[in-house]
C-alpha cells in the first residue's frame, strides 16, 4: 500500500544554504494529503522529471526532525 500525496506547488532549488550545497538540484514542495498541506522534500529528482501541480508523490518517511519526505510516484495506479 502506498501513502500518496499530490503536489500543491513545488520548486527545483539550484542555490541553497551551506548545509544543502551538495544536494542541489533538489525539490521542495507543498504536498497535499487529504485536507492537509505540508512542506516536504521530494527525493529522486533528475532533469528528466517534468513537475506539475497536482502530480502524485509517494510518502517515504519522515526525517529526524519530522519533516515529510516523498518520492516521485512509482506505485501501481
Amino acid at each position, binding site marked *: 500500500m502506498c501513502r500518496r500525496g499530490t503536489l500543491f*506547488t513545488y*520548486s527545483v532549488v*539550484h*542555490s541553497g*544554504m551551506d548545509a544543502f550545497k551538495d544536494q542541489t538540484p533538489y525539490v521542495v514542495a507543498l504536498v497535499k494529503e487529504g485536507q492537509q498541506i505540508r512542506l516536504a*522534500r521530494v527525493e529522486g529528482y533528475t532533469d528528466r522529471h517534468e513537475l506539475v*501541480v497536482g502530480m502524485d508523490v509517494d510518502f517515504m518517511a519522515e526525517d529526524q*526532525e519530522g*519533516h515529510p519526505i516523498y518520492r516521485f510516484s512509482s506505485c501501481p495506479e
Partner: protein
Amino acid sequence: MRSVSVIGIGETRMGRFPERSLRDLIREAGETALNDAGIERSVIQALFMSNFNAQFLNGQGHIGPLAAEVLGLGTIPAIRVEGACASGSLAFRQALIAVASGLYDVVLVGGVEKMAHLSTESVTEGIASASDFAQEAALGATFPALFAMIANRYFHEYGNVREAMAICAVQNHENALLNPDAQLHKQITVEHVKNGLPIADPLTIYDCSLVSDGSAFVVLAATDVARTVCSKRLVEVVGSGHAGDTLTLASKGSLTTFAATVSAAKQAYAMAGVGPADIHFAEVHDCFTITQLINIEDLGFFSKGTGAFGVTDGKTAASGLIPINVSGGLKAKGHPIGATGLSQIFEVVTQLRGEGGARQLPRADVGLTHNIGGTAATCVVNIFRGR
C-alpha cells in the same frame, strides 16, 4: 489621534561597501535626515531603529543605543524594531503611533543593514531566520524557494506570467538608472531574466532582489509642530496599516493573495479616506518579481489575476498610469533589509516634494509604500500626501 508629517529624510547609497561600518552607514543617513529637517538634534525625543539581523550578520545587537551614540542623541529612549524585511516600515509605524498619541512631538526613525560582506550561502542562512527556521529553512526551503513555490502556484491558478515577471525586473532596472542612490545602474532585457542563473525554478538570479549594505532615516513630527519648522513641502502621513499572517507558507489560506497585504491596505485606505485609484504612484515590496505582481493586485491597482496584463501594457512603468518602484525597488535600488522600508518612504517623500530630479514623476501628490516581511507574515502599508 494627531496628524503626523515627515519633516526630514536621508539615506546612503545602496551597495556593497566592505569598507563601511554599521556606524558609518548610520552616521551618513541619520545626519542627512537631521540636516534635511533643519532641526537641532536636541529636539529629537525618541529614536526607533530598524534592523533585521545584525546579530547574525555582524555580531552586533542593541542597535538602538549604537545609533543614538553615533548621532549624539544623548539619553533619549532608543528601541530596536524587528519584523524581517518589513522592519523599516514597522519601526516607522511605531514612531508614527508614538507621535500621533501625543507622547512625543518629534522623533527619529532609522534603519540599517550590512550584509554584502558575507558569502551568498551565509546571507541566505541569515535571511532564512525570517521564515520558520525549524520547519522551512531546515528542510532546504530558502526564501527564493518559498517564493518560487508561490510563483508556480500562481501559474497554476492564473496562468503563466513568466513574461510579466521578467518585465517587472527590466522596468525596475530601468528606473534605477535615474536614481543616484541605486546599487545597480545596469540595463537588462527580458531574455537576461529568463535565461539568468537558475536559483529556484522558475526564479533566476534576475528575479531576486539584491544583497545590499545601506541605511535610511526619517524625521517625524506632529503636523502642527511640523508647520513651524518645515521649509519644504509638508508630507503628511494620511494612512497607515499593519497586519500579519501565519509564519509558515504551508499554513496560509492562499499563496497567490497575501492576507496581510489585503488587511494592511484596507486599514491604510480607510484611514486616508482614499482608494487604490487615488494613489498616484507606489513603492511596493519586490523581493522577487512574482511578489511585485501579487502586490499590485493585493493593493487593488489591478484585479486578481490581471496584474501581469497591467505590467505588459506599461501601466506600471514610470510613464504609466500607476508608476511602481520608480526608485528601482528592492530589485535594482537595493534591499538592505532593515533600511528597506524607510528607503521606500525616502523615495515617496522625495517624489511628493518634487525633488526626484531626472526620475521626478509629473503627478505626485499621493504616494503609497508597501513592505512585507517573510512570506508576507508581516505587512505594513503607508499612504502619504503632499500638502
